[in-house]
């Protein structure tokens, strides 16, 4: 069970007013809010042990290095990776994806095939299009149905010995659909290809176990999980990461340097060139501690209740259509009301202190599929309440009256 009143006290931002109304924050799928426990971790680092890591013999550097590596172990244990060095710290999901895309550019030849799901976010489409332009590989799309669910029979038809890599998000950012990644991974491995799963939308709600999923790469961002922006994770199986060439040259990623030749460091340093976001990584660890102290299962169960309540209340509004009706979805409701433009609804809700996302959610292919300019998206987190959902419904009705 979740004590929402107590939890809300951990989030100072939830106290504030916006445009004269109490803030109702329903843009959690874009970024989650940050609890004091995480904020304090960042402050503590800069106040007490700010130093560069992995290269100082002095005490501060040692303390910072220990805290940084302890965060790696927390993340390893949260996602159940086999080894700490299978966790690479990045600046976020997009960076993680680009490391793999860049590495793959040396592994692909013309005619090889990559598959992407129709539910992808732009950051999971564009790097692969660029990769295909460079290598002559071909990008194919796994289609979805009206409910926003991937059609796995079509995946079977697309898979062949030409397939090298399949990338799919664990949860769709625009619709909230939870994809059957375990099944997809099994099918893809059967043709000898690798799978990259974008876990950015899933990780706040679902604790992925990378070993039991047997996934090759799993990526996410700390700021979706109550952590700071500018930090993310690339999990890769040791064999997968070892065959990828380094992404950037610089300090930290080398073993030995002469003007004739440089040998690269092993994992994870091979992919962590330069001074990383040390405080951010430590705070990422603190954010997982915080979420685990509440319990991922408790979080998921409570968010499911919010989703059911929100769906039920919104469906009472005449003309409201929800996009993404998969049986298995996270606490995301993407909707439109009649022919009213999402921008108009979002602008008026903002005037009443309610933060929702409007637009195409960086997933234009999905909007094209439904032939709509975008949607209004309300995404809930474990610190949201039923009362906040009711406030949104009242505000939405007011907006509809004004706009019709």
């Amino acid at each position: 069970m979740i004590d929402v009143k107590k939890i809300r006290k951990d989030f100072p931002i939830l106290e504030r007013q916006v445009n004269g109304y109490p803030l109702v924050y329903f843009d959690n799928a874009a970024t989650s809010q940050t609890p004091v426990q995480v904020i304090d971790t960042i402050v503590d680092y800069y106040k007490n042990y700010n130093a560069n890591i992995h290269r100082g013999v002095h005490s501060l550097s040692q303390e910072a290095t220990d805290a940084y590596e302890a965060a790696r172990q927390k993340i390893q244990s949260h996602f159940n990776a086999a080894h700490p060095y299978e966790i690479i710290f990045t600046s976020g999901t997009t960076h993680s994806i680009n490391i793999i895309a860049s590495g793959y550019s040396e592994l692909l030849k013309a005619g090889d095939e990559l598959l992407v799901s129709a539910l992808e976010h732009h950051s999971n489409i564009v790097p692969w299009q660029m990769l295909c332009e460079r290598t002559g590989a071909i990008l194919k799309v796994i289609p979805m149905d009206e409910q926003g669910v991937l059609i796995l029979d079509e995946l079977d038809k697309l898979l062949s010995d030409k397939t090298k890599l399949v990338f799919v998000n664990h949860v769709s950012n625009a619709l909230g659909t939870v994809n059957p990644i375990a099944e997809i991974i099994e099918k893809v491995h059967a043709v000898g290809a690798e799978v990259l799963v974008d876990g950015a939308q899933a990780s706040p709600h679902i604790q992925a176990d990378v070993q039991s999923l047997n996934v090759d790469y799993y990526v996410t961002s700390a700021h979706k999980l109550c952590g700071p922006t500018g930090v993310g994770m690339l999990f890769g199986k040791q064999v997968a990461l070892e065959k990828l060439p380094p992404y950037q040259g610089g300090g930290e990623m080398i073993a030995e340097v002469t003007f004739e030749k440089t040998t690269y460091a092993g994992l994870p340093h091979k992919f962590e060139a330069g001074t990383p976001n040390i405080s951010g990584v430590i705070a990422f660890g603190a954010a997982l501690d915080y979420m685990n102290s509440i319990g991922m299962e408790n979080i998921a169960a409570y968010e499911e209740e919010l989703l059911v309540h929100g769906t039920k209340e919104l469906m009472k509004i005449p003309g409201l259509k929800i996009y993404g009706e998969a049986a298995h979805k996270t606490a995301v409701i993407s909707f439109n009301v009649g022919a009213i433009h999402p921008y108009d609804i979002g602008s008026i809700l903002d005037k009443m202190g309610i933060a929702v996302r409007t637009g195409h959610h960086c997933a234009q292919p999905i909007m094209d599929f439904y032939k709509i300019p975008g949607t209004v998206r309300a995404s809930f987190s474990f610190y949201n309440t039923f009362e906040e959902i009711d406030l949104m419904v009242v505000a939405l009705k007011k907006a509809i009256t004004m706009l019709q």
Partner: protein
Amino acid sequence: METIKAVQNDIIEEFSMFDDWMQRYEYMIELGKSLPLIASKFKSDDYIIKGCQSKVWVHADLQGTKLIFTADSDAIITKGIIAILIRAYSNQHPDEILNANNDFIDKIGLKEHLSPTRANGLVSMIKQMKMYALAFKTQLN
């Protein structure tokens, strides 16, 4: 003919009669609904400004020494602001348009819609209107 500045001052005065944001928005939505539509031949991809949030179409015609703007948007609030901008800038000499600024939007409490982060196409629309003014000014000279 009133100058752009005078029209802007009229608009500021009109908006000062409203007590709260809701009245301002209701008025703006009314303006949006009454905006004379752009001719359908100009509502094409050649005249489109794609924002992340809403789309805007804008077209200009020179009549004598004055520029006449017509425009449209798929979002009604964006359209309301377009109506206000057209009221200020249409039927004016290109020089006047090039020298005008948009501070009045701030004064009527609608500044957030002209923020580049809103990505609703309005910032680009104003830029486009100035580009038209520049192009027609060259033609007039």
